[in-house]
């Protein structure tokens, strides 16, 4: 059980920078998600923590000890690979026992330990089978078994559900989370699936282009995005951005856009220039009287809610409204935005303007 501190971690492959000066802290027992699109450096970060890559610069502390240059065998960190990487020439029992054998544990103790783990994972009856013929789910369980059997300080998981079919993923995600809660071990989990990250994680780091964009709880990441990238990457449909040229003062509580006036969380800095008015689909209300007008382009019925696509003078938006509400393509309606949830972004840099709403939000 361990706390992991990442300090100014950087990794370069030749001229290519995979991870740029990242810092964050993973608390003891946390289920920690590294989230981002493919090629953003999340897997490289994970591999550096495990010792499969050596950082170009920066430090990694495991329980206060600097480990960034140690070989993986001296770190006591387990790793679950995306394709499981079960040893193909060994059966299930041997696969799970392999980390214990390397420690020179006596045979009888190994057997007890493997049986105990097999019981936790519900794979006692396949211990003698070769790994070649196993189903995806069983392979996944064997890979987990191999990781948990030695009771490491922390688990690294590289998209462990990526190789499973959609139906089984959900089930396995729950199993994983339950396993984590039962063992309470620090877990770092890489995924590109924002739903998975929101559903399973205690904390999320969002990475993009080798940079940590934001670091926080799923709620923080969703409600208080630090950058336009995070706002766009998280949520489905993602946050709406209305583009306009405008100006806000320090401490302002409203902003003028397209001749309409909107209440916003109190700002903490002045800004003038190209702005994006960010609002989540569920925080948009359609009201006939509102002065900000939009034309309905399309509606998408989802059972309890519907997604309405509208064209405004500042760009198109998607609104999530009750399915009962009448919305016909071609109608012109007025839009209202929940003022407490609005985030203004500097469109040039993508950074969220500081305000009452996003105080205390952590950048990378």
């Amino acid at each position, binding site marked *: 059980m361990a706390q992991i501190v990442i300090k100014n971690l950087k990794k370069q492959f030749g001229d290519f920078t995979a991870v740029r000066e990242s810092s964050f802290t993973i608390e003891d027992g946390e289920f920690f998600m590294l989230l981002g699109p493919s090629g953003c450096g999340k897997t490289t970060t994970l591999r550096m923590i*495990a*010792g499969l890559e050596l950082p170009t610069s920066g430090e990694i502390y495991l329980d206060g000890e600097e480990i960034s240059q140690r*070989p*993986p065998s001296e770190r006591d*960190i387990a790793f679950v*690979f995306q394709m499981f*990487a079960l*040893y193909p020439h060994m059966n299930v029992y041997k696969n799970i026992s392999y980390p214990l054998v*390397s*420690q020179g544990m006596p045979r009888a103790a190994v057997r007890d330990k493997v049986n105990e783990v097999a019981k936790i994972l519900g794979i006692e009856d396949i211990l003698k089978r070769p790994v070649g013929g196993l189903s995806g789910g069983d392979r996944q369980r064997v890979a987990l078994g191999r990781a948990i059997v030695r009771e490491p300080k922390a688990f690294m998981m590289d998209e462990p559900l990526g190789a499973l079919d959609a139906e089984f993923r959900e089930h396995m995600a729950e199993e994983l989370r339950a396993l984590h809660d039962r063992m309470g071990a620090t877990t770092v989990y890489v995924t590109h699936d924002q739903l998975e990250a929101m559903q399973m994680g205690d904390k999320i780091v969002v990475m993009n282009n080798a940079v940590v964009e934001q670091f926080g709880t799923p709620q923080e990441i969703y409600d208080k995005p630090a950058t336009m990238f995070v706002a766009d990457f998280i949520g489905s449909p993602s946050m709406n951005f209305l583009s306009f040229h405008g100006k806000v003062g320090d401490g302002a509580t409203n902003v003028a856009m397209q001749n309409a006036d909107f209440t916003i969380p109190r700002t903490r800095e002045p800004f003038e220039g190209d702005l994006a008015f960010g609002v989540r689909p569920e925080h948009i209300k359609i009201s006939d009287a509102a002065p900000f007008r939009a034309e309905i382009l399309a509606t998408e019925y989802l059972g309890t809610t519907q997604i309405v696509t509208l064209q405004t003078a500042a760009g198109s938006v998607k609104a999530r409204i009750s399915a009962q509400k009448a919305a016909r393509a071609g109608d012109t309606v007025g839009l209202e935005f929940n003022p407490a949830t609005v985030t203004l972004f500097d469109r040039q840099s993508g950074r969220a303007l500081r305000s009452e709403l996003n105080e205390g939000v952590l950048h990378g």
Partner: protein
Amino acid sequence: MSSFSITEPSNRTKWFAGTLVIAYALITMIPLVWIGLTGFKSPADAISYPPKYIIGSDSEAGFQPTLEGYVNLFTTRTRQTEEFLANNPPENWADEIVRQYDMVIVGPSKFGERFLNSVIIGFGSTFLSVFLGTLAAYAFSRFKIPLADDLLFFILSTRMMPPIAVAIPIFLMYRNLGLSDTHLGMILLYTAVNISLAVWLLKGFIDEIPREYEEAALIDGYTRFQAFYKVVLPQAATGIASTAIFCLIFAWNEYAFAVLLTTANAQTAPPFIPTIIGIGGLDWPAIAAGVTIFVLPVMIFTILLRKHLLRGITFGAVRK
């Protein structure tokens, strides 16, 4: 289900392909069978026309099998006077066979020794090629080596001309180094020729083994070298086996260097067998017997590893 299938060939296609394969196998096997038969013929039967090819038959095409060829291959003989032959009865069955030509066996021939040389040099150089080749291929496959592509090309370039093209420099070099006509010299030479093949073949096989297996082993507490021999080697067994066969076949059959660089001490079987021709006329049965024995080890080695070989030749064709 229709009877037509894209993946499964029709019965007629299968029948045709089967016939073709069997015909090809028969054609390629005829020389081998002929050599095998000739080894058991008498010198007269071996060159008779029309040829004789049915064992133990009294018909026109039949011949009585004899071990004469094998006896001649393994012994040296001298002609004796009638008086000597009358006073000294044959010592054993082999002696009896040579008596019909008024000869007696005076000792073993060099064939056994030459054959052993072939075994030592052939298997020695195969082991060394595969051992060094596996290590080099692993390094090329897994580590970032400066100028890796150039080095690989350089290794391959040693095969871009026939090895015999450098025979004269090697001959002079070996003479100066004292490697001429030594087992070590021949092992080193065949290893040098084979190593490029070994590195390239094995690199292909090792490239196909996912890195995650080793990384899993590293995570599980093993060192890089332990990960290599406990996880990578078992996975590469197929590639190693087929590479070993290719290396052995080359080293085993090599003739030109063997003629040039070996004489009394380290001579291998290929240059020795033709020298039989010089001893007492064209003794075809003895030559055929020598060839038969010479072919056997490679055949046995290949049959033992054929499961791997089949996978090996088609490697890369099927992605798992």
